[in-house]
Structure formats: C-alpha cells, structure tokens
C-alpha cells in the first residue's frame, strides 16, 4: 500500500478559494473521517462540512477512484475558502488522519509512475506549475498537449521507415525488395535534420519564455546603476548613495514587462581598486556581464563614447539626463533619468530586441534542458549518419540511424526495439 500524500494545489497566498488535494490508496477513507456528508459518487463536487481541530469549514469535496484520476490513484480534493490559515488547517487535519506531506512534484511523479502521463506530459505539467509568465505557461501548455511528443513521434516514424528498409536489406539480401535508394534516404534524413534544427532553434525562445532575459547593468562607479535598477523595478531595492563603491555584490531582481520576464543584475562599479572586497565585486560584475543576454552600459557623461568590452549585445544608457547641459554625443543610445523614474524606454527597447512577437506566435518552444540535450545529440548523430551514407557501409549507417531514433525516444520515453522488426514485416514481403 502506498502512502497518501497531501498538498495545497493552488497558489499560496490571498485568493478566493484554495484547493487541497490528497492522493493515495487511503485518501478516501481519510477524507470520510472529517468531511460530512461525504459525496455518494465519485467525480461529483459536493458541499459539506469539514471539521478541523480549530473550526468547522464549509467546503466542497470531490473524489476520484483509481485509476480515473490525475495521479491514477484514489484522490480527494477539498475546495475551501482562500487564505493561508484555512488551507493550513485543512492540510493539518489530513495529516492528523494519516496523510503525509507531498514532496515537490510528487503528484506528477505518481501520475507518471502509474502510467497516466508519459515523460513529456509529466514534464509539461511541472513546467506549467513553474511558469511565471504568460508565454512560459503557453510553452508548458504545448508540452501538455504533447505537441512536442507528437512532433517527435512523427520524426521517429519517418526514421523507423528508413531503418526498417535498411534492416530489411541487411537481413534479407536475397529478396527482391523495392528499397529506397541512398539518395532518397539521404533526402529524408536531411528533412528530419531540418526539423530537428527548427525545434532546437526554438530553445533560445523557450529559455527566454521560461527563465526570462538576463540584463546586466554595468558601468563606472556612481553613474547611477543602482538607481536605475530601482527605477526599473519600481521599488527601492538597491541601496543608493553618493559614495563610490556602495554596491559591492551583484544583485538580481526580476520584473515582468508585458509577457516577458527581465532579470536585471545590478553590479559593482568598475574601476581600478586595491580593496579586496571591491576587487571581488568587480570580478563578479564582469562575470555577470559575460553571462547576460544583454548588457546595459551606463554612463553619466554625455561625451562618453566608450564601449563596454563584451561579446554580448549592449545598449548604452546616458543616465542623469536631468543634469545634462548638452545633448549626449551618441545618438543610438538611450537617454534616461533614473532619479525621475523615466526608464520605460529601456524596457520597451529590450522588449523589441528580444522579438517578443516570435514568442507569442511560435507554436512550439523547447524549454526543457533534457529535451534540448536529446535534440542536440540527435542532431549530431544524424549529421554523422548523413555524412556516412557516402563514406561507409550500410551496416554502420543503419546502426547510426537507429541511434538517432533511440535518442528521440528518450524525449517521449518510448524505446521499443521490437518496433523495427514489426515495421520490417508489415512493410515488406519476406521469407521463404
């Protein structure tokens, strides 16, 4: 018998209602002890009284019987009033009656283990939960509908055709099979490679959607980097002073602009220094700039034409425009005054830069590292296989194509070597 787990299924914090869910062999028995009247049938939402040790709560209850539930186990949900205190009391009541607290992602894990979800489904749900912006939620939804899974399965299917033709040729050399030529096979493989490349190229967009864009704010000391961060966030997050070198460590804060998340990194001012702590801070500033998606190079000198030394894209920001006596010398830069909160133009520029348009219209995004690494591996293997078509013998090439197929199978969690043999016999008339 497995343990019955319980957790709050809706977000923590203020809300109209919250949902507490229990899953496990005993969940229905546990719920019957403190919810009355208990629904007579599964899948039916029923109003009743939930007795906790502190108070009686008017709540709704619904239960599902294995395997017809999200986790594939007996499951009970309580829809109660919102707010932390109520949910906490309901969870405590469940715990008192024998449930245990669920680990992170344990509901999805059980769903996967019980065969209710394939690997991509389960990962999709976890991403959906993690999604912090609208576009990330959409990428999660695509995984959930198994769009990725379907695309991969379609690629696998084409590969299976090619593999089975090769294998039929190898295992049945004496049959007069109508087999595709090397040229047509190569063409098909190249098509698959293109599709894999397309999928991989959505990964950058996927990362943007999921994790947001890292924006490093760099520049000399006292040019107003921390003020700029505060202005961008709309709150006083970083300490601001007139003393050079106030900011020692990097500080990251995120803000959503339309549907994109920006992670702004405030950094220590860069200058020659003998102070050990400041030297470390400057080192971190440089590192933050090198790993950022874009660098905001801040200056308060309208005659400054310098360029921050990085291979990352950068935008020059003339800060403290309220103090400028002349127009800044570089026209392709942004002129702002952090002090007066006039920084919208930075957000707008960044938004344009990262073609939010593409994220909204792209119907498929790779946001999962595991999927990306599988696809990249498949790409490498396939490239090699295509090159080998002309270089070596069919026994080797067939193995290589089979490997591509297996690598893709790691995404969908399918790996059935019998498939090749089944396909051979369904496609070709073979045998004595």
């Amino acid at each position, binding site marked *: 018998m497995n343990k019955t787990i319980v957790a709050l299924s809706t977000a923590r914090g203020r809300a109209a209602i919250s949902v507490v869910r229990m899953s496990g062999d005993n969940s229905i028995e546990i719920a019957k002890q403190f919810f009355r009247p208990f629904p007579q049938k599964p899948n039916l939402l029923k109003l009743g009284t939930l007795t906790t040790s502190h108070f009686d709560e008017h709540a709704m209850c619904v239960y599902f019987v294995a395997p017809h539930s999200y986790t594939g186990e007996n499951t009970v949900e309580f829809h109660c009033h919102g707010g932390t205190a109520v949910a906490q009391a309901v969870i405590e009541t469940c715990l008192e009656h024998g449930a245990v607290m669920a680990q992170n992602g344990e509901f999805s894990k059980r769903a996967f283990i019980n065969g209710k979800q394939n*690997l991509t489904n389960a990962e999709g749900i976890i991403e959906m939960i993690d999604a912090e912006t609208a576009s990330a939620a959409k990428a999660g939804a695509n995984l959930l509908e198994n769009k990725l899974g379907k695309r991969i399965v379609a690629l696998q299917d084409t590969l299976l055709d090619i593999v089975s033709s090769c294998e039929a040729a*190898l295992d049945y*050399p004496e049959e007069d099979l109508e087999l595709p030529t090397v040229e047509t096979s190569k063409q098909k493989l190249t098509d698959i490679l293109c599709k894999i490349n397309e999928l991989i190229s959505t990964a950058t967009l996927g990362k943007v959607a999921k994790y947001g864009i890292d924006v490093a704010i760099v520049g000399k000391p006292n040019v107003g980097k921390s003020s700029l961060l505060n202005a961008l966030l709309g709150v006083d997050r970083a300490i601001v002073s007139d003393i050079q070198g106030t900011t020692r460590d990097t500080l990251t804060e995120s803000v959503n602009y339309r549907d994109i998340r920006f992670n702004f990194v405030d950094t220590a001012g860069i200058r020659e220094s003998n102070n050990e702590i400041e030297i470390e801070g400057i080192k971190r500033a440089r590192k933050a700039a090198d790993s950022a998606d874009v660098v905001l190079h801040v200056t308060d000198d309208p005659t400054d034409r310098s360029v921050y030394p990085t291979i990352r894209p950068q935008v020059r920001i003339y800060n403290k425009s309220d103090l400028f006596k002349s127009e800044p010398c570089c026209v392709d830069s942004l002129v702002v005054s952090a002090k007066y909160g006039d920084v919208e133009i930075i957000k707008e520029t960044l938004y344009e830069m990262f073609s939010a348009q593409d994220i909204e219209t792209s119907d498929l995004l790779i946001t999962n590292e595991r999927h990306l690494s599988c696809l990249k591996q498949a790409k490498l293997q396939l490239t090699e296989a295509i090159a080998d078509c002309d270089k*070596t013998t069919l026994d080797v090439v067939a*193995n290589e194509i089979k490997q591509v197929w297996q690598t893709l199978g790691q995404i969908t969690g399918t790996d059935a*070597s019998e498939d090749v043999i089944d396909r051979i*016999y369904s496609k070709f008339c073979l*045998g004595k």
Partner: protein
Amino acid sequence: MTNKNYDIIVIGAGHAGCEAALASARLGCNTLMLATNLDTVAYLACNPSIGGTAKGQIVKEIDALGGEMAINADKSLLQMRMLNRGKGPAVFSPRAQVDKNVYHINMKRTVETTPNLHLRQGEATAIERNPDGSFSVATAVKLVYKAKAVVLCCGVYLNSRTIVGDCVRNSGPNGFANAKYLTESLIELGFKVSRFKTGTPARVKLDSIDLTKTVEQTGEADVAPFSYATDSIPATKRSCYLTYSTAETKRIISDNKQLAPIYNGSINGVGPRYCPSIEDKIIRFADKERHQIFLEPESEETDEFYVQGASSSMPASVQEQIYHSIEGLENVEIMRDAYAIEYDCIDATQLDATLMAKHIPGMFFAGQINGTSGYEEAAGQGIVAGINAERYVHGKAPFTLRRDNSYIGVLIDDITTKENTEPYRMMTSRAEHRLILRQDNADLRLTELGRQIGLVDDARYAKYLHKKHQIEQCEKQLKEVVSPKLYGPLFEQKNEPVSGAGLTVDEILRRTNITAKDVQSLGFFDETDDDALYQIELNCKYRGYIEKEKDAIEQANKLENKPLPNDIDYSKIDGLRLEARQKLNKIRPRNLGQAGRILGVSPADIQILIVYLAQNIHKQ
C-alpha cells in the same frame, strides 16, 4: 522394468540435441541421446541449407566454442556463398547449400564415434523428477532411463499435426512419428505450453523443371569454410535456380482462399511472419506482382529440389495448380507435398541464461521447443544447454554468453526475457552490437571461452593463438611511417590521391581503396595469413565505429552489472506499475539490463528499481 543410469539424457537428436549431446559427452558425461527415429539424426526437415544472415554468424560461434555444426556443414557442402557483400562486414553472412543425406549421415557417424555418447531409438513418453533430484525418462516401449540432468530438444515433434488442406495428420515432419505424451509431463512439471506453427514447401523433380526459364546460381569460390578447423571448401557441386511466381499464381490463390487452413481457421498455431506461406504472401502483399522462388538441391544423390519461397498448406490439388503457375514449373512433378506443421513449445521465459528451468534444477531445454525456429538457432542453444548440463552434473559454475560477445548470447537473452508471440528467428537487427559480433571474428570472441570449458582441442587452440599473435605483430607496425616514394605507385594504381608527405601504415590502410594485402606488398605484415590480415584491415577501417560500439557496450553494462537479487518480491515495491510487478515476478531478471528488456517494464520502472536497490544497499 530396467533402470539404466546416465549422467545426462538428451531427448531429441536434431540440431539442438546433437550439439547438446556431443558437448556433454565430450566433457566427460555419460550421455544418452534418445530419438524417436534414428534416421532423423540432424535431419534437415525444411530447407537444405545452413547459414545465412545472422545464422551464418551463429554457425561460426558454435564452431569457436567447439561445436559440430560448422564442421558437419563443411563436410556436406553443395555450394557456398557470402551474402551481403558490399553492405559491410557486420552483415557479411556465409550461407551454404548442403546435401541433406550426407549431412545426416556425417552427423550420425560423429555421434556414433564419440566416446561416452549412446544413441538410442525410443520415444520419450514421460519425465519424472525423483526425490533425489535426478530424473527418470520412460519410453514408449516401457524402458526407463535415469540421469542427473536432462536436456529436452524435442524440436517440432511434441503433439505435432501436419496440415495439407483439410487433411490433418498427427505426425512429425515428413511423416516421421511425433511425440504424443511428453507434453503432459511438461505441464505436470509446471511448464506453460503454447502452440506454434511453421511450414515447408513441396519437393519437386529436377528433370521436370524447365531450367531455361530460370536463372542459375552457383556457389562462390572465395568464401572461407564455416569451421576454423576446415582448410578449404570444394567447388560448387550443384546449382540453385531462381524463378518467379506469376499473375496466375495470384489468381489461383485468391480463388481458393477459402480452402487455405490459415484463413479458414483450421490452423490455431501462431506462425512466423518471416516465414510466410505463398498464400500468406500473396494475400497480405496483394500489390506485389511476383514473388521470388529459389529452387534448391536437396542432395547429390536424388533429383528432389526444394521450392524455397513457396511453402503452403493448401489442399494438394490446389498446390499442384500453384506450383504449375510458377515460371519454369509449368509441368513440374511434385514428389512431396508442402505442408504446415503445428506443435507444442514451452515459454522460454521460464528458463535462465543457461537454458535450465528456473524452477527445476537439472532440467534444460534447447531448440524449437523453446519457441525458436531454424537449425542454427537450435544448435546454438544446444551447445549452451549441453555445456551447462555437464557443469550442473559436475557442480561447476554456470556458463552464459552475453549480448556483447555473441549472437547466441543475444538469442538466449531474448527468448528468456521476452515472451515469444511467434517462432523466433535470429536477425542481425536484433543484435545491437552487431559491428562487433561479426562472422569473421567469432573465433577471436569465443575460442578462449571454448577452451576454458574444455571443448576446444590443442590443435584448434594453437591455430587461434597463432592468428592472435599475427594480428598483434601487425598492429605493432601500424605506426611506422612510409615514404611517398614507396606508397606512391600503389596509390596511383588504386586511384588514391598522393599527398607527398609520409604516411603511417595505419593511415594508408584507412584509405578506402587500400587493402591489407596492398600494404603487405609494400613490405609490411610479413608472413601473415589472410584472415589475420582481414582483421587488421577491418580494425583500421572501422576503428571509429568499433570504438563507439565499445563505448555503447560499456554504457549498457552499467545496467547489466547491477544484479537483482533472486528473492525480491516485486509486488511489494512501491511505485512499480502493476504490469511491471507481474512481469518482473514472473521472469525474475538477473540484472537491471535484462529487466529493462522485458516487455511491459518501462524506463520509469527501472528508475524505481534503481532507487529500490540503492535504498536496500543503504539499509544493509
């Protein structure tokens, strides 16, 4: 009632039985081999041919382990070919036409002259396990034999029925008597029995074939013998002929479909997809205009020809029409009818990797009784079962082959891991490491093992060591640098671009058009035999791929080397899906690698097992 005592009794004298009995007797066990009919020893009941894709590799592996099939095939050759030339060394496959009478007689003679081995006619009717763990085997004439271990190699004889249209006979292949009672003993001993089906085509008379309408196929002279002990093979003794079915064949079969036992429900056994009857081919692949038919000689001594590609269970009168519709066979005289045969076999997942029943120590199974098809597959199991029966009797550690060292290892792992839904045929595509499991290196892979077991004699072993030594000597020369002056003329002659710089022997040999023989002509690889040269050549040309394969093996072995204790109760492991629990409890895999190959056990289940094992180690 007499009681005769042996160490081992082998039931059945087919291809599995002969290898099992020879191995056990040669390893010093007093062995009895029972056969329903001594004229069926090593009888080639279907096609008169040994080898082919994946099967040729198995024959060579049997040979390297010290078995008999390769030697016997070499002694009985009509012609030999190498299939898959041009498709790569991993799939080169030797295939021979053999004389079925000579093959039978040669094997029978070998069996008769092997010390410790007693060949006896008799239908085994019952097997009993005695309280002391030994076995008693009773025969139809009420003799009882006793032994410490038994090896069942009953082929397709258990409760077999042959079917020609609506004429069904309780008979073994070719009208030989079947074994009617033994299945009952097996069921009593707890074996799950199912029913499979296979078939064979008609035999026709050579002088009634219009050979002018066929294409003659002779053997090839440059193919090495199957056995590393055979020095050379004879020239083609008899040809094969290629012809085709016609539109008329299609019409006849379509018109008579209702008479086909496989379509009207009178055959219950499951037949192999890779061995379809002509009616099956034509009905399932209706688009295909014509089907290839090979005419193969059965023997030098008769005019009977085997009609490969046209097995059938149609009524004999329809068979006549079908065969007459084949090009060149318009007036052919049928000598023996085609028939389908149904038989009992066991569920080989009840066996472990030594082919011993997991629940009955000392009871081994090999060949078609395990749900496989093919002479070679049977013989490969036979030698493994024979070796292990001897080891069981003498209290030695079990001997198992692996997926990364042999096709036989792949075969045994497959059948003991996955429940067969049809007769199992070996294919190169089943071997994930086929780049390493080649016909040319079977001796290098397995001779050492055969020697340790005790089946490889001094002469054979010396030959192997000699080859290995030559390869090592050649490898030492691979780094030597050759001047353009020396290799230039060769490269020009072979259309390889000359760079002007010195090249190592290795670099030269990796060029597409250069062979090890060419390198030898430059003054390297002195006094090296052709087969050693070939190894050097492959090792250089395919090095990258072979290295990759070795990495893959290492990866796979990470799971393969995680043993699963035999006493795990899978039904109690939290998180395993129901199907996985049932399958794991039934098959009781040796390790995580095998567990992962069980149908119905998912990668998630394996993750859970890994966690379970880790927890248990932690507890201890």
